[in-house]
């Protein structure tokens, strides 16, 4: 049944692309707006052979990874602290919740003022955007630890470290991974936005240039690359999450 459904979905998607291709070739679609899929694919192949495009992809990946690697531990640490130290939690959580809801792009000019148009600026803005997801996720993960299980472990003689390892970590793991996954999506979006807004390199910078020059095949090809990378990472984290959260009833 599931296999059956997959075939139908795949056929449907392929059908859409076929229709698009046909309409483009028949001149029913404006090629300058929506070039045929085959044209985009061709552009994609060409792009992947151009060293400067590969360098740009590398720059973006580096920015995103660096921002992610800073935001995750720092954000979680802040989240754990806010959850475990009631005074700090009471003081800072309203602020965090407020900033969590504000569109971060508003602050982009501030980051340019602080860091100039540079790679550190992209990383800093990526961290700034991502970290709130991790803080909120860190707080939620600590709060998801059932207190009764901590009591049970104490009755059975667990020391502090054993409680962390045997109860806290496994209980928190699914929410931690979920936050990391969400954070990653925010992070990639932030870095790309930064590059499109103003940069010297990076795939976002190329996208902006192609867009300004109305080079639609290249623009869509870049979209395919970014989407493929995002989906791949997202899917990998989602699988890990499902594996570590197998014990949750709803899974």
């Amino acid at each position, binding site marked *: 049944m599931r296999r059956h459904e997959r075939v139908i979905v795949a056929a449907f998607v392929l059908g859409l692309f076929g229709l698009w291709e046909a309409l483009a070739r028949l001149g029913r679609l404006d090629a300058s707006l929506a070039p045929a899929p085959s044209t985009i694919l061709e552009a994609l192949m060409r792009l992947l052979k151009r060293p400067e495009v590969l360098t740009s992809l590398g720059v973006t990946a580096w920015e995103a990874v660096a921002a992610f690697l800073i935001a995750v531990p720092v954000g979680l640490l802040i989240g754990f602290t806010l959850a475990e130290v009631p005074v700090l939690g009471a003081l800072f959580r309203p602020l965090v919740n407020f900033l969590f809801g504000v569109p971060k792009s508003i602050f982009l000019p501030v980051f340019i003022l602080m860091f100039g148009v540079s790679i550190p600026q992209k990383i800093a803005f990526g961290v700034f955007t991502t970290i709130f997801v991790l803080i909120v996720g860190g707080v939620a993960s600590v709060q998801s630890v*059932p207190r*009764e*299980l901590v*009591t*049970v*472990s*104490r*009755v*059975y*003689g*667990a020391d502090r470290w*054993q409680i962390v390892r*045997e*109860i806290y970590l*496994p*209980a928190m793991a699914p929410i931690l991974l979920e936050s990391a996954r969400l954070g990653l999506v925010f992070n990639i979006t932030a870095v790309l936005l930064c590059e499109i807004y103003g940069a010297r390199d990076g795939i976002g910078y190329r996208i902006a240039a192609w867009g300004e020059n109305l080079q639609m095949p290249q623009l869509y090809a870049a979209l395919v690359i970014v989407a493929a990378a995002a989906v791949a990472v997202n899917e990998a984290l989602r699988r890990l999450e499902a594996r570590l959260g*197998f*014990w*949750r*009833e709803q899974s």
Partner: protein
Amino acid sequence: MTRALVAIQGVSQHFGVDGASVPALEDIDLEVPDGQFVSVVGPSGCGKSTLLSLVAGLRLPSRGAVRCDGELITAPMPRKVGMIFQEANLLPWLSAVDNVAFPLKLRRVPKRERLEAAARMLELTGLAGFEDRLPHQLSGGMKQRVAIARGLVQNPAVLLMDEPFASLDEQTRMVLGDELLRIWSETRKTVLFVTHSLHEAVYLADRVVVLSARPGRVVDDVLVDLPRPRSFAMTTGERFGVLKDRIWQHIKHAERR
């Protein structure tokens, strides 16, 4: 049956609530001989559970001393005292057998040894064949059996049970009560059993300790002189009714206040 395995001596417990000191238990003296099954009953909020958490070493009494096997209890003593709660409180990411083995894991018993011990306990509690189930794949009664197996896995002398059947349906509760008596007769643990159910208290125990309303004091200590093994037929007998009624008189007055 002469040695007091659990000795609660002049124990009072106060809680600080909004700066005021609220008494929960007042001057409790209770000696439980080795192998005795004691039920503790009392009106809601009388500190029954607090009493158990003192024996579990989860908190220290404000006054007095709690001893197990002569030793003053200042911290949990997992090898001497096992505890079962109202909810099974199993670790949801561990299989039944791993949950039972968990106290041994905390003590760093080698894996093979602890899994063997856990499997034996699951067999004792009637769960052979369910070793690899996750908690969410078990019924409420089965989860509580796993919790009992976990409480017994270190072969502690004392088993503390804090309303262990309260969240089960009546039929499951009756079946598990009989199962508990069977396990008790095989292992001869000293049991402190807190319950809201007078029926359960009398049916299971050698002795029922009745606490007053907050702050809890011992107002009666009833010897249950019904023969063992207990049977359902006894519960309709005259003696059972007399015992239950005697306890009910205390509770009734306290709850009415």
